[in-house]
C-alpha cells in the first residue's frame, strides 16, 4: 500500500458514525430477561387474542430446546438472552396517534436528523411510511389512500386485531418457528413490524416503506414482517435501518415472510446502516435476520435487493422458495464491511416447481479488519424440470487485514436443470485506478468511482426513492477507509 493510501486510510478511519445520537425519551420497559411472564406481558400490552398468545408460548417452548446455529463464519461472544429487554415502548403511546401532529415532537426530530422528515416525505416522495420507533409503530401515513384500493398496510399488532384470519393463515407458514433458534425466538417475542396485504389484481401505486430504528439501550428488536400479494398483484416494499451509537451490543432478530400467489410480484428492498461498532470493534448491533419468500402460485416473482453497510455482525440470508411453476426468484446484494465488522450473508434458492428461474448477484467489499462471507445455496429438487439458476458473486478486497470468503452450496437432483455459478475475488484494478488518476481524480475519488461501478448492477435494482440514499451510504462506508 502506498503512503497516500495509508494516509487516507488513517484520515477516514477517524470518521465517526454520522447517525450516532440518542433520543432521550422515557422508555417504558419491564425487567430484563426472557420467560413466559414476559411473553404474556407483551401479548397483554398488545391486547392480543388468546390464539396469538398460545402461538407465542408454543414457539418459546421450541426455542428453549434449541441451540443457536453455529455454522456461520462469524465470531462473537455468546448471547446472554436473559440480559436483554424484550419490550420497550415510548411512553404515552398507549393510545395510537391519529396523525403526525399527535406524535411526540422529539421523535419527529429524530427522524429529521436521519433525513426522513415524515411530513416532507408524505408530500414530496409519495411514500407511505410505517415508522417503527423501538417497538411501537408511531405513525402510518397514506393509509387512507391505500385503503381505497383495499390494500392493508399496518403494523403487525394491528393486523392481528383487524385481519386475524390472514395472520393466522400465513404467519409462520414460510418461516416455521422451529426452523432455527432465531426464528423461534422472534416468533415468541416479536413486538412490532409491518403487515401488508395486496388484494387480487391490484398494483400498489406507491412504494411502501418502513423505517426501523433501534433506540433504547440493550433492547432487542424483534420485528415481524408479513407481506401477502394476492393473485395478479404487485408491491414494492422498502426497508431502511439506522441506529444510534451505543457501546453495548444490541441484538436484532427480525423475521420477514413474503408470500406471492399466482402471477403476483413482490419486490423487497433493504438499506441497512445500523451502528457497526467503533474502530476497535467495540459495540455495534448483532443482526440475525431471517428473510424468506414463498413463490406459492404459478408465474409469481420475488425479488430481494439489499445494501448492507452496518451492523457489527450480520447473519442474513434472504431466500426464495420457488414452489409455483414458472416462478422467479432474484437476489441482488451489496455488502460492505469495515473495521471489525463481520458479515455472513447470501441467499438460498430452492427450486421446486417446473421452469423456475433464479438469479443471484452478490457484491462483497471488505475493508479494514473485517470479514465478509457470501454463503449461497442453490438446490434443484427432483421435479424442478428445466429450472435455471445463474449466480455471480464478486468480492473486492481493500487492505491486507480483511478477508473475503465465498461459500456456495450447489445441489442438483434434476437432469434438465441448469446451474451456472461464477465468482471472482480481486483487488481494485491498478489500470483503472491509474486511468482515473490521470484524468485528475484524487485517489479517493477514483476508488469511490470504481467501487460504485462495481456495485452498479445491484444499486440500479433499487427503486428511485432508495437509490440516492443507497449510493450515499455506499460512499459513506467507503470514505471510512478507502484510500
Amino acid at each position: 500500500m502506498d503512503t497516500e493510501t495509508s494516509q487516507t486510510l488513517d484520515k477516514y478511519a477517524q470518521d465517526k458514525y454520522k447517525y450516532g445520537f440518542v433520543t432521550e425519551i422515557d422508555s417504558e420497559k419491564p425487567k430484563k430477561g426472557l420467560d413466559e411472564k414476559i411473553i404474556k406481558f407483551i401479548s397483554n400490552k398488545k391486547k392480543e387474542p388468546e390464539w396469538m398468545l398460545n402461538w407465542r408460548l408454543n414457539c418459546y417452548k421450541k426455542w428453549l430446546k434449541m441451540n443457536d446455529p453455529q455454522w456461520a463464519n462469524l465470531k462473537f461472544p455468546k448471547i446472554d438472552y436473559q440480559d436483554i429487554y424484550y419490550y420497550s415502548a415510548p411512553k404515552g403511546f398507549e393510545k395510537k396517534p391519529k396523525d403526525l401532529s399527535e406524535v411526540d415532537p422529539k421523535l419527529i426530530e429524530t427522524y429529521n436528523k436521519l433525513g426522513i422528515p415524515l411530513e416532507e416525505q408524505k408530500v414530496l416522495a409519495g411514500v407511505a411510511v410505517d415508522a417503527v420507533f423501538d417497538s411501537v409503530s408511531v405513525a402510518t401515513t397514506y393509509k387512507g389512500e391505500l385503503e381505497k384500493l383495499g390494500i392493508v398496510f399496518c403494523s403487525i399488532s394491528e393486523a392481528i386485531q383487524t385481519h386475524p384470519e390472514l395472520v393466522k393463515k400465513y404467519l409462520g407458514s414460510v418461516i416455521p418457528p422451529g426452523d432455527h433458534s432465531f426464528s423461534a425466538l422472534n416468533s415468541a417475542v416479536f413486538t412490532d413490524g409491518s403487515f401488508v396485504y395486496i388484494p387480487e389484481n391490484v398494483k400498489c401505486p406507491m412504494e411502501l416503506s418502513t423505517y426501523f430504528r433501534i433506540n433504547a439501550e440493550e433492547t432487542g428488536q424483534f420485528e415481524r414482517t408479513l407481506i401477502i400479494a394476492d393473485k395478479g398483484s404487485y408491491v414494492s416494499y422498502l426497508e431502511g435501518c439506522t441506529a444510534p451509537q451505543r457501546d453495548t451490543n444490541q441484538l436484532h432478530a427480525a423475521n420477514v415472510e413474503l408470500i406471492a400467489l399466482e402471477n403476483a410480484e413482490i419486490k423487497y428492498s433493504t438499506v441497512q446502516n445500523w451502528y457497526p461498532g467503533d474502530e476497535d470493534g467495540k459495540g455495534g448491533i448483532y443482526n440475525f435476520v431471517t428473510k424468506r419468500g414463498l413463490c406459492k402460485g404459478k408465474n409469481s416473482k420475488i425479488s430481494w435487493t439489499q445494501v448492507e453497510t452496518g451492523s457489527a455482525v450480520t447473519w442474513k440470508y434472504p431466500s426464495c422458495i420457488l414452489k409455483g411453476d414458472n416462478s422467479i426468484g432474484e437476489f441482488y446484494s451489496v455488502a460492505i464491511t469495515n473495521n471489525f465488522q463481520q458479515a455472513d450473508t447470501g441467499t438460498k434458492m430452492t427450486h421446486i416447481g417446473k421452469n423456475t428461474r433464479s438469479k443471484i448477484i452478490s457484491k462483497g467489499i471488505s475493508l479494514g479488519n473485517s470479514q465478509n462471507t457470501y454463503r449461497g445455496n442453490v438446490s434443484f429438487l427432483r421435479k424442478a424440470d428445466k429450472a435455471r439458476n445463474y449466480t455471480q458473486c464478486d468480492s473486492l478486497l481493500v487492505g491486507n487485514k480483511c478477508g473475503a470468503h465465498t461459500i456456495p452450496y450447489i445441489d442438483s437432483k434434476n437432469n434438465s436443470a441448469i446451474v451456472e455459478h461464477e465468482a471472482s475475488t480481486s483487488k481494485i484494478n491498478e489500470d483503472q485506478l491509474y486511468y482515473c488518476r490521470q484524468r485528475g481524480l484524487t485517489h479517493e475519488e477514483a476508488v469511490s468511482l470504481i467501487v460504485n461501478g462495481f456495485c452498479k448492477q445491484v444499486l440500479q435494482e433499487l427503486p428511485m426513492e432508495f437509490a440516492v440514499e443507497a449510493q450515499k451510504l455506499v460512499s459513506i462506508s467507503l470514505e471510512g477507509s478507502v484510500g
Partner: protein
Amino acid sequence: MTFENNFINHSKEYIFLDNETILNQREKVFKKIIQKNYDKKNNESLKNITISELGKFNYFYKPQKEDPTISLIDNSNYEIRVINGICKNYEDDNIEIRNFTNLDFKRFLNQDKNNFDDIIIDINNVFLNSGIFFNIKSESRLNIRLIHDTSDNFTIFQNNFINFKKNCEVQLEDHFHLKHNSINNINYNIEVEEDAIIKHNIFQNFSNSNKLYLTSNTVCKKNSSYNQNTYNFSAGFVRNFHHAHLNGEFANASLKGCFFLKDDNACTNKTNIIHNAENCVSNQTYKGILNNHSNANYYSNTFVSENAQKTEGYQLSKGILLTDNCSFFSKPELRIFADDVKCSHGSTIGPVDESALYYLRSRGINKNQAMKMIISSFIEEDLKNLDSESAKIISNNLSDYLNSLVND
C-alpha cells in the same frame, strides 16, 4: 464387526506393535472416534456418512504369499507392484523404496496433521497396517508406475511418504487393481522440493465390491510444480481428498479430476489448496458425468493466507446429469485474506447441451453416437497432457463407459 471389536482385535497388529507412544496415540484417536468428538462445522469428511456405519467392517489382513516386485523396464521407467500394501525394498541411483519398520514411528507421528479433523485419516491411524517410503533422488528423470494389488477381503490401511528431491522430474502413475470386497484407505504424504516438476496420474477402475479412500497431502516448495490428475471409472465407492500446500514462492499446484458414474455408484471428492507464499498459482478442476441413480459430491477450497500476495487461484467444476435420478452437489469455497490476488471459481451442473445434440442429429448422426461424441469432447482437454499409453487406458475406459449408457 463393530468398530470396538475391530479396535480390540486388530489395532495392535503388524506395524509399531510394541511401541507404546503409538499405542497410546491410537487409544486416544479411538476414543475421539467413538465419542464423535469432531468439529462438525465445515467438516466435509463427515458429510453423508454415519460414524458407526464407517466403523463396521470386517478387518482382514495377513502377510501376503505373493512377492512384490520392482521391474526396471529401462533406466528411467519403473514398474512397482505393491501387494496388499507391501513393496519390495530397493535402492539405486535414482530411487529408494522401503517398507515401514518399527523405527519409523517418529516420522509417522510427526507427519503433517493438516488433514483437518478427517475421520478417514483417524481410522487410518488406528488400524495402520502398512506403509512405504519413496525417495526420489535429486536430478532424476523418471517414469514410475505404481500398481496397488489388493486381494479378496483385504482391508489395507496405508500411510505412504513420497519425497521428491530437488530438481527431479517425475511422472508418477497410480493404478488400483483391487479384487473383491476390499477396503483401501491410503494416505499419501508428498513433499515436492525446490524446482521439482511432478506429474501424478491416478487411475481408478475397479469393481463395485471394493472401496477406496485416497487422501493426499502435498507440500510444495519454492519453484516446484505438482500436477495431479485423477480418473475415476470405478463401479465401487471412491473418496478422493487431496490437499496441497504452496509453501514456497513461485510454486504451482493443480488438482484435477474426472469421474464417470453409473448405476447406484457414489463418489466424494475434495480438493483443498492453501497458499502460504507469494506468486503461486493453483488450479482445481473436477468434471463428472452421472448416469442412472449415481450421486457425487465435490468440495473445493482455495485458502489464501494474508502474506500470499500475487496469488492466482482458479477453480472449476462441471457436472453433466444424464438421468433424473442422479444428483450432484458442489461447494466451491474461496477464503481469501490477501488483497493482491486473482481468484475465481465457476460451477455448472446441467444436462447434455440440447443444441449440440440437435446439431449432430441434424447431420445424420444417431442419438447414441452423438451423445458419445459430446461426452468424449467434455473431457477431451484433460487428455491432452497424457502420454500415449495412459491416453489409451483412459480412452478404453471411456468407451466402456459410453457403451454402457442406456440406449434409448
